[in-house]
């Protein structure tokens, strides 16, 4: 493959790495500051909105970026470095050595980040549900009637794709015949309880969307990058 082709594939791969908290691709968020592809060698630089962004989330993004790039055919050497962060040195060294989070902070960390990641995947799934249902309600659906819907009843949309992807990541029912409104464990929500579930889902959505806006704004302030901070929603 040519270097250009590899570059495009690497960029696509990085686009599948999401900030676990904001649930958006690191490429869209402007976190990928530099990407160099030379033959089979790839070097990427990541930067975050603040010096004190949570080290656990930072670690996940660096590690995920390495995994994503490594999976691209034709790539043999990968170096991903986090810059301008209070724990950059430990994170970079830990990820490069494949030490895991606990291995990168041997004195401090109490364990790996799987549970943290799962928590935020659950939140992302809940927010997706809020977005999908918001649209249905705007189209005139009655709230309790949503309890009878299946994933297949959703029109094709980016929101539906996102919802299905989150379900798959969490190991929740994601086939077309799976119920639309489910709880964190994939159990269907009964009519009468749908409003409550969606009310909470909305708070999750507001929280995640708002935080993403805050982080984009801070990144722009910090680096003067041309990130889009226009208000949406």
């Amino acid at each position, binding site marked *: 493959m040519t270097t250009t082709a590899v570059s495009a594939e690497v960029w696509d791969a990085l686009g599948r790495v999401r900030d676990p908290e904001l649930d958006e691709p690191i490429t869209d968020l402007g976190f990928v500051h530099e990407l160099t592809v030379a033959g089979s060698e790839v070097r990427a630089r990541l930067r975050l909105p603040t*010096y004190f962004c949570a080290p656990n989330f930072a670690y996940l993004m660096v590690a995920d970026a390495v995994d994503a790039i490594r999976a691209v055919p034709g790539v043999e050497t990968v170096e991903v470095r986090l810059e301008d962060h209070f724990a950059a040195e430990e994170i970079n060294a830990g990820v490069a050595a494949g030490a895991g989070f606990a291995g990168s902070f041997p004195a401090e960390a109490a364990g790996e980040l799987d549970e943290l990641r799962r928590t935020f995947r659950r939140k992302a799934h809940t927010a997706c549900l809020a977005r999908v249902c918001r649209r249905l309600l705007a189209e005139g659906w009655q709230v309790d009637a949503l309890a009878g819907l299946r994933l297949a009843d959703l029109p094709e949309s980016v929101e539906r794709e996102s919802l299905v992807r989150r379900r798959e990541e969490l190991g929740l029912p994601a086939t077309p015949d799976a119920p639309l409104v489910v709880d964190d464990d994939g159990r269907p929500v009964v009519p009468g309880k*749908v409003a409550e579930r969606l009310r909470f889902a909305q708070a999750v959505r507001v929280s995640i969307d708002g935080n993403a*806006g805050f982080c984009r*704004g801070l990144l722009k302030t910090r680096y003067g990058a041309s990130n889009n901070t226009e208000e949406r929603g």
Partner: protein
Amino acid sequence: MYTKDGETYFVVDSHVHAWDGSPANQANRYGKGFIECFYDYHRSLSPEGWVWPLEKFEKYSDETLVRDLFDEGYVDKAIFQPTYLTDFYVNGFNTTEQDGRVAEKYPGKFIVNGSFDPRDGESGLDALEMLAHRWNLKGVKLYTAEWKGISKGWKLSDPWAYRYLEKCEELGIRNIHVHKGPTIYPLNRDAFDVADVDDAATAFPDLRFIIEHCGLPRLEDFCWIATQEPNVYGGLAVAMPFIHTRPRYFAQVLGELLYWLDENRLTFASDYAIWHPKWLVEKFVDFQIPEDMQAEYGVLTPEIKKKILGLNAAKLYDLDVPDAAKVREEPADSGAAVGSAPAVPA
């Protein structure tokens, strides 16, 4: 006080600082990074014309602080919330003593809050008692995510934390401000996890737990707890400035808070010197929920604004409020029960 359109607002700024983040006081790169991070918050969300040079932001004079809050910012009473960070700053970033010195220089203007760390054990209990007597403490500010030696944070539900909360009850310290928000990081735990507040609030029903930054960006977790615990409050520091840069987001946050809690448990704060109370107060009094969101969130009345801007905090700290700024006392009503709202999520 602030008066607009015939309404008078008593203003309590529930979260202010007199810090020293200057290079001379920075102990290491963390101290430098910390104040620069604050400075980016300041630059990112302040309106044009309200941004200071970094040097001024790092360390401002007592005169500047008092002028900004009380002469220009409409503030009637300001509450100092200490932020020690003794690992980052030679003399600490913003200690109770630093705050207390300013408060004594300008009597009647400030409330001085203290702090404790349950990992200090027995000796810390004595220190808290001394601090309480010296500064007549009615409140404390806590950082559960702060590192200390090999410990990477603590929980309000830890046995030692309960000892300290019992001590607070004994000393008449009823306002427990808990920082759940950015910039102080636990390592692998979630810095914003508010689950421990739930346990402590149940165990200490006579204490009030004011969650600074209202759990943002974990608004939903905070709301969920606050709905169930009547002694949990939301401090609006950091949420407020979005009123300028992202008014629709601000409306949603406030709307969610009013839905899940109620108008009696939210307190205004500038987080000075990160933001200036003058523009925050002016914009808040002028603010209304955008029309297309009103079906869901309702509207903000002058009464709601009066409570948030000062009356709620005045109750927590037993402050006298001039008659002109009072609102009619209503029976406490926490609003509709969760899940019983009109079933039309936006």
